């Protein structure tokens, strides 16, 4: 085993030690959304033909949980280590910026996907567990988790205080996830908002992920995949660059 796998395993242990808060809590939250929205809206909305609103809501909620938790893991771990000062234990080792990147991104993906599986297992009681195209589910789940894990590293590097990080989460990540079609199909929106949604990269992640459940979606999953990959490559490149520079961690 190499040095960075230790860092990866340490990061996994870190969230697993408090899994009640990092895994169980987001699953419960998703279930509450499911319970309330499906109860209120199931009679009124039919998004795709033959797909109940409850079933439609499920992949959106799963993906939202994956994205939020992947982001939360890398960003909160980094800022805690920065503020506590224990990041120095990693900075003093021979681990390179790439090793750092792999360990933080993969561990954040692990938490995001773990929560995703949990939400899928729990909300399946309402909407069913069937997956029409499981490979797409996997590709978008992992790709989306990777993108948000990278964004989490970026935010964790940039933020000097917890409230700056909370600001990033509440004013950037939350609006982009909520306005990406988690709770609705963007086809039900007026033209202006539909156009705007097409500029939101989160929309493509959720739409592509949903394709894996129903084999139907607002846009082609290949197109969504292309957008996801472009975003992922751009954000990962920026993250690696800042890590190589030692942005805000090496003076």
């Amino acid at each position, binding site marked *: *085993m190499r040095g960075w796998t230790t*860092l990866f395993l340490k990061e996994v242990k*870190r969230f697993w030690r408090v899994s009640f808060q990092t895994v169980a809590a987001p699953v419960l939250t998703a279930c509450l959304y499911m319970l309330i929205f499906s109860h209120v809206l199931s009679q009124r909305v039919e998004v795709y033909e033959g797909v109940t609103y409850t079933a439609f809501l499920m992949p959106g909620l799963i993906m939202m949980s994956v994205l939020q938790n992947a982001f939360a893991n890398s960003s909160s771990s980094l800022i805690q280590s920065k503020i*506590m000062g*224990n990041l*120095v*234990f990693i900075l*003093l080792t*021979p681990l390179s910026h790439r090793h750092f990147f792999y360990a933080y991104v993969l561990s954040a993906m692990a938490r995001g996907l773990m929560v995703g599986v949990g939400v899928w297992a729990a909300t399946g009681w309402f909407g069913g567990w069937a997956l029409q195209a499981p490979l797409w589910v996997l590709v978008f789940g992992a790709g989306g988790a990777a993108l948000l894990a990278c964004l989490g590293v970026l935010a964790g590097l940039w933020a000097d205080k917890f409230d700056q990080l909370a600001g990033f989460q509440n004013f950037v990540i939350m609006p982009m996830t909520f306005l990406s079609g988690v709770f609705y199909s963007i086809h039900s929106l007026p033209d202006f908002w539909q156009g705007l949604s097409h500029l939101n990269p989160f929309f493509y992640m959720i739409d592509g992920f949903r394709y894996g459940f129903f084999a139907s979606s607002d846009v082609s999953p290949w197109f969504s995949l292309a957008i996801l990959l472009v975003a992922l490559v751009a954000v990962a490149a920026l993250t690696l660059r800042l890590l190589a520079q030692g942005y805000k961690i090496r003076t």
Partner: protein
Amino acid sequence: MPAIAFDQVSKTFSGTRGQFQALREVSFDIEEGEFFGLLGPNGAGKTTLISILAGLSRATHGQVRVLGHDVVRDFAQARRLLGVVPQELVFDPFFSVHEALRIQSGYFGLRRNGAWIDELLEGLGLADKAGANMRQLSGGMKRRVLVAQALVHKPRVIVLDEPTAGVDVELRQTLWQFVSKLNHAGSTVLLTTHYLEEAEALCGRIAMLKQGQVVALARTAELLQRASASVLRFKLDTPLPPALAASARVTGRIVQLPAPNAQAVEDILASVRAAGGMAEQVEIRPADLEDVFLGVMEQRA
């Protein structure tokens, strides 16, 4: 090949309130097996120099090499050879002492390091705390863990940045016993400290930094010779005459003044008496490192 080579190291910090030059062309070598002291007042640049050595900070100009490995270009090898005890009392609250040491070993790619970890725990008096969570430890115990973490990969060059600041006597002794043992076994030690008697007792050579520059660099014995041969020490209840105050070391009632010969002793006591004071418990002692340090710092002011 030197254990540590500082070559024309400069560091300028740029902030919102302009620039600050923390180090100015610092150059010196530390040979393998040395116990080397780096002294200087707060803000002299000691920690900045060590941060550059450890890769926590980057020099604006110049190079640093650890056993020939450049700390920037060949950072992985340099860091394998280097064990740094940071000045701040930092810890990871998620893990126990033993876990922290196993994880730290893992970062260096060491998997079967149990025997050495046990030896570290034993040698630093941590054996009965191995299972305790880092949060439950006292400050002194956390400091011991920091030392153990720095040594977990058996570095050939050990750097201790003020390891005894705010630490009790027992820990100081444990620490120096253990570090001296490693030094005798061949490890190079670089120590920064505010306790000059510690540096005098432990370090073979000493560099003094002031405002980012090396202002003295010599064997400890030579530095001590360089100081005025003796010091006059007495207790005084009245204020010191201004002419003496400039070169005196005053600690409460205790006054210490450099007095190279009998004439100087007489002159000092005479001027104290002339000012209406009465020197009590008068004694003459040989100069120590603190006198040298104060002398050097004063000269360059």
